[in-house]
Each structure stands twice: as C-alpha cells, then as structure tokens.
C-alpha cells in the first residue's frame, strides 16, 4: 500500500474515532439539559463524561495534527478556506471545556445554570458546524487553482445543512445511549425514552443523507466503479438497526457499541467515496486536493506512520483501561459525596 493511501486510511480513522468518542459527550452535553432539572442528576450526567471528555477531545487535536503533518496542503486549505466555521468550532470547544470543568466550582444555582446552558449550546454548535464543514467538503469546496471563491453563507446549502443535522442527531442518540448505560434510576429511564424516540429521526435523516450524497456529491463514483463497496453504507444501516434491536431489549452497552459502529461506518461511507481526494473542488476537478498533491514527502510520511502505528495503539490501550476503570455506573451517591472528584 502506498504511504499516501495508508495515511488516508489513518486520517479517516482518526476522524471516525474522534466522532465516536467526543460524539457521546456532545450528545450527553446537549441532552442533560432536557433530561432533568434536579441538581443531583445534573451532576450525575456531567460526571458520566467528566473523567473522559478531555481525552476524547485530544483525538481532534491528533486528527488536526496528523492532517498538518501528512497532508499539509489539505490542512492549510481546510482551515483557511473554512475560516469562520473553524472559528466557531474553536469557540464552541473552548467554552464547552470550561463549562464542564467550571460548572461545579461554585455553589450558586445561577452560576450552575449558566454553565449548563453554555455546555448544551456548545455541545450542539460544535457537531453542527463540524457537520456543516464536512458536508461541504464531501460535495466540494468552491476553489480552483487561483484560490478560494466561496463565502461563509454559501456553506449553508441544503446538503451542508442536512449533514449538520445528521451529525447532531447521530450524536444526540449516541449520548442518550451513553447515559442509559452510565446512569440509573429516573435519569436512565428518561435517557432510555429519548434514545427510543431519537432513533426514528436518525433513521430518516440517515436515509436522506445517503440518498442526497448519491445525488449531489461525486462520492458515488467509487461505489459505481467498485459496487462491492456498497457493503460499507449497508453496514452503517445494519449497525443502526442493531442499535434499535438492543436498545429495545434494554441492553444498553451493546446498543452503545452498535451506535459507535454506526458512526464508524457513516464516516467510512464518506471516506470511501472521497478517496483519493481529501478536499474536492466544486469548481474545477483539476484543483482537487488529493492524497498525492497535498501530501508531505515520503520521509515525513514514513516517519509519521511509524509514530502513529506505534503510539496510537498504546493510547488506545490506556484509554480503554481508563474506560474500564470507570465502567461502573455513575451513582447519585457518588456526587452527593463530593470528595473523589464528582
């Protein structure tokens, strides 16, 4: 396999893992505002993501850093062409992180409700803008060899908006399933109801996304050339069905894993269609940023491949161990006894 192809796969994987991990804390961050007004449950829902959200977000930093190192041409264009969306993502993540960490640092109700609101808003805006950005990347940005010709408002086209809504719904469901698995009692019961209901709009929007992708993007080219690849979107749909099956049987952990698989295959569906482009041009296919014309030299690619193949598995292992360490449900008793971090 060519180094560039290996890096394309790693690039797609980093994004997928990022969406799987930050996805559930985005979802939980949004949903907890609607699940309960009761202080202890608010703390429980926050504590369910408290130990892990920061480690989850580093996957974004790594995806960004890997784009910089492996495909600097793509990194430069993606971040500068999408200047305003990137800024919005940045502010969302900044305010979100501080909301999670500062929410319990003062006892006043006003203080806490402001941070709760900010956390919900930014947990919504971050995936919304990420979806908007990726939707526009999938269908191509407005640039040619002379530069970028698009505007911020042009990003709000139907397909971009659909992708944005899809991301938000997918993560809402993902977060609901996480809360079902991590909490108990009334809170878990409400999260279960949300997860049950959310599945239907997720299915509808997922179907619309797949169909629309087939029509307005060039992502179908690879599927037409290699029909066997259709397996990837089929797996995404299958995983989504599995979510419903196990969710209905109250098997929370398996339903959550199926949701992880859904996100993985949704991203894979897009990446398979995108290859070998990283950012297609909507104006001139000759200007497409591809894995060949926007990559680093072979020396850097090889170096970074070694770094990634050695260290990313290590990261995966210790992050899994930390998840295992915190595998028990977050109890009301945990947060009522404020010592110990909750």
């Amino acid at each position, binding site marked *: 396999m060519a180094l560039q192809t290996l890096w394309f796969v790693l690039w797609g994987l980093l994004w997928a893992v990022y969406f799987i991990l930050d996805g559930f804390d985005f979802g939980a961050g949004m949903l907890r505002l609607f699940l309960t007004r009761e202080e202890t449950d608010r703390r429980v829902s926050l504590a369910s993501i*408290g*130990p*892990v959200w*920061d*480690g989850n*977000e*580093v996957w974004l*930093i*790594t995806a*960004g*850093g*890997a*784009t*910089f*190192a*492996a*495909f*600097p*041409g793509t*990194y*430069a*264009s*993606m*971040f*500068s*062409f999408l*200047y*305003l969306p*990137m*800024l919005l993502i*940045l*502010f969302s*993540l*900044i*305010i979100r*992180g*501080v909301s999670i*960490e*500062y929410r319990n*640092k*003062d006892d006043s109700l006003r203080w806490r409700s402001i941070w709760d609101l900010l956390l919900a808003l930014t947990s919504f805006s971050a995936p919304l803008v990420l979806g908007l950005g990726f939707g526009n990347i999938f269908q191509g940005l407005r640039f040619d060899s002379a*530069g970028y010709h698009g505007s911020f408002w042009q990003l709000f086209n139907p397909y971009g908006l659909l992708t944005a809504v899809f991301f938000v719904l997918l993560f809402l469901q993902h977060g609901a399933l996480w809360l079902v698995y991590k909490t108990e009692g009334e809170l878990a019961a409400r999260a279960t109801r949300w997860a049950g209901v959310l599945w239907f709009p997720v299915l509808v929007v997922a179907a619309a996304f797949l169909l629309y992708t087939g029509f307005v993007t060039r992502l179908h080219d690879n599927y037409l050339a290699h029909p066997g690849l259709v397996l990837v979107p089929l797996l995404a749909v299958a995983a989504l069905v599995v979510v419903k099956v196990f969710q209905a049987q109250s098997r929370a952990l398996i339903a959550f894993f199926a949701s992880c698989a859904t996100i993985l295959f949704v991203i894979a569906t897009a990446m398979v269609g995108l290859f070998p482009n990283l950012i297609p041009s909507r104006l001139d296919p000759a200007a497409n940023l591809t894995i060949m014309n926007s990559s*680093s*030299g072979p*020396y*850097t690619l090889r*170096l*970074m491949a070694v*770094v990634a193949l050695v*260290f*990313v598995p290590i*990261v995966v292992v*210790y*992050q899994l161990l*930390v998840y295992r*360490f915190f595998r028990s449900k977050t109890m009301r008793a945990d947060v009522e006894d404020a*010592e*110990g*971090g*909750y």
Partner: protein
Amino acid sequence: MSVAVLSRIQFATVAVFHFLFVPLTLGLTVMTAYMETRYARTGDETFLKMAKYWSRLLLVNFAVGVVTGITLEFQFGMNWAEYSKFVGDIFGAPLAIEATVAFFLESTFIGLWMFSWKRVSRGVHAGIMWVVAGASTLSALWILLANGWMQRPRGYEIVGGRAVLTSFSALLGSPYAWIKFAHVIFAAYTLTAFFIMGISALQLLRGKKEEMFRRSFRIAATFGIVTSVMIIVAGDLSGVQVAKYQPSKLAAMEAQWETKQGADFYLLEMPRAHTEENAIQALAIPGGLSLLAYHDANAVVKGLKDFPPSDRPPVLVTFVAFRLMVALGFLFVLLALVSVILAWRKKLSSHRWFLWIMAIAIVLPYLASELGWVLAEIGRQPWIVYGLLRTQDAVSRNLTPGDVLGSLIAFIVVYGVLAVVDVFLLTKYANKVED
C-alpha cells in the same frame, strides 16, 4: 491594517494568553505530585491538605490552558496557510507527535486523577499526577522542538518551493530547541515557585493555617532558588545559540548597530531606531557583549547596520523585552535567596514586609515569561522561519482584513471573559482554606 499585521496581532494575543496558563500547569503538576508523594510516604495529613489546596488552583488553571491550546494548532492553518504549506512536512510532525505521545497522556490521566481520589491507594494517586506532570513536560518539549525549528531550521532541503524534512534526528537533536526547552521549563518552575510563595505569603500575613503555608513556602523557596539560577544558566546558553544562528536578533536585543570585535556591554543603554544609534549608552563593560554572546571577549559581533533594513527586527521592542526579562531573572534569584534563608531559619512571620513583597511578586514571573516570548518571536522578525520564509509571505491568501479583525475581536471578548472567570475562581480557591 493588512491581513498579515492583523494575523500577527491575533497570534500574539492567543499565544500570550495561552502562555499565561502553561507555566503554572507545568509547575503545579510537579508540586502537587511531590506533596502527594510526601503524604503517601509519611502519612502526614498536612501534605494531603497542601496537595488538595494547590491542586484546586491547578485544575482551575489547567482547564483554560487546555482549551486555549487548541487555538494555536488551528491558527497555523487558519491564518498562516502559506506557512503551513511551506513547512507542514517538518513543523507538522512535532505537533502531531506532541498530541500523540504527550497530550493524550496528560488529558487522559488528569481525568483519571480527578475522579480517583477514593478508588486507588495514595501512592498510585500520586503516581498518576507524576504521569500528568511528565506528560505536560513532554508536551512542552515537542512544542519547543517545533518552535526551535522556526528559529534555527535544520535537517531539511527546499524542494519545489517547500521545505522538506531530510533528517528527523537533526530536528530532534537541535541544541537551540533543547536549550530553549530548559529555559522555558525552569522559567515555568520558577513562576510556580513564586505563585506558591506569593499566595502562602498572603495567607501567612492573615495568620491562616500557618503550618501548611509555611511548609508550602519553604518547599517553593527551595525549589525556586534552584530553578531561578538554572534559568540564568539556560538563558546564557540560549544567548550563545542566538548569537550563532540568529545574528540579527542578537544585534537587536543588544542594540548593537556597528559590527565590532570585542564589543562592549553597556549597563545603561537605550536604542533610537530612526537614527540608527543609541540615545543612551553608559557604564561599559569592555568586551562584555562579545563575552556574553560568544563566551570570548574578542569575538566579532555583527551590528544591525550590516543587515539590510528589510532584514532587521524591530529594535526597541526586542531590546526592551530582553533587558527587562534579564533584569527580572536576576531579581528572581535575589528574592528566592532571601526567601530560602528566611524560610529555613523560620523567620518569615517576623518579616512581614518581605511577605508583602512576595505577594506582589506573583505577577513578575508572568511578565518575564511573556517578555521571553516577545523577544523570541519579535526578535525573529521579519522571518517566520529564520532566513527561509518571511512572515508577510506566510499568511493565508483568501482572508480579508475584515475576517481577521472580526475574529480578533471575538478572541479578545471570549478570552477576556475567560480571564475574568479564571481570576474569580483562582481568588475564590486561594481564599478557601479548609480546616
């Protein structure tokens, strides 16, 4: 204003703001880990109280440090796309490695640490904080390896208008970067020592929890005297690197206009840039500048006039930042020395005036650290990569001044609010002493 100028102001703003939080994280993780270790070894509850007290301040500080760090990674692509294309092959590597080997570890283990007080033994809990401290330090190393390459590019060749990495070991083994790393780490530890001493001084003045704060003060003072001396050692070595590889920065920071063998160092000096001379120049140390820069009193120092005006950094800012930083550096040694003597002789309480000085002195290492970055980055101008790529050619081409002005204002507003909240919480937790 041009996109380049506005982007520079924006980068300066977000970098300076981020670095208000980084050094304290670097130092307080070590201090917390040390206090917890002492607690685990001795079972002395005072060490536990100290660890809890200082780590609460650490966590408030840590949160803003983490979230404002993301901005910097985004900035290169957003505002400096031409730079990113030019150096991505090289500069992207240490950034990506930083995230993979250091930032993951730091973020995952701080989460583990926060929520595991009751779930693991004292020793293991201290160990987790040592991992966080080690990972933060490792993080700083990779960032400074990246910055070190912008200061002194090596191990590359230019292919098709882009810098391409040819030797990772050259990047990794850059003396410039390692010396700078040492300088930054010791500065961070000194800042932390002064932070702990300053707050402890305030608490001692109020007569609160004397034993805990006296002990904190003493530990910080002992730590601080070593680290503040080491800043100067690393700073001197750093100066030699600058002289060797960034002669225009050296000339500007020393306000040396003429090329001279055995150049003198003036204790009192003030440059006047528009007439290309020094307005004030007094109290000479013969051959002092050559000695400082090259460790040889007879060495030749290249003057600013031997650089075309378009290749010179802004002289006044570079000069003032350097002088002030150095003056503060020596002041830190002095203050740390007095602190150590008074703390070990148990005479702190009888020298209230000194406690007041130490309380006020909290801000000084912050100032010195930022001045260090002003010197490093403005002194490198007009280059973004010294000698290779000019800052004005590095900026994103699709941006308008309006775009950047808008984002700059947004950053100032959001960061301003963050600063207020952060100071509110730091003050609150600094005042909150549990019995």
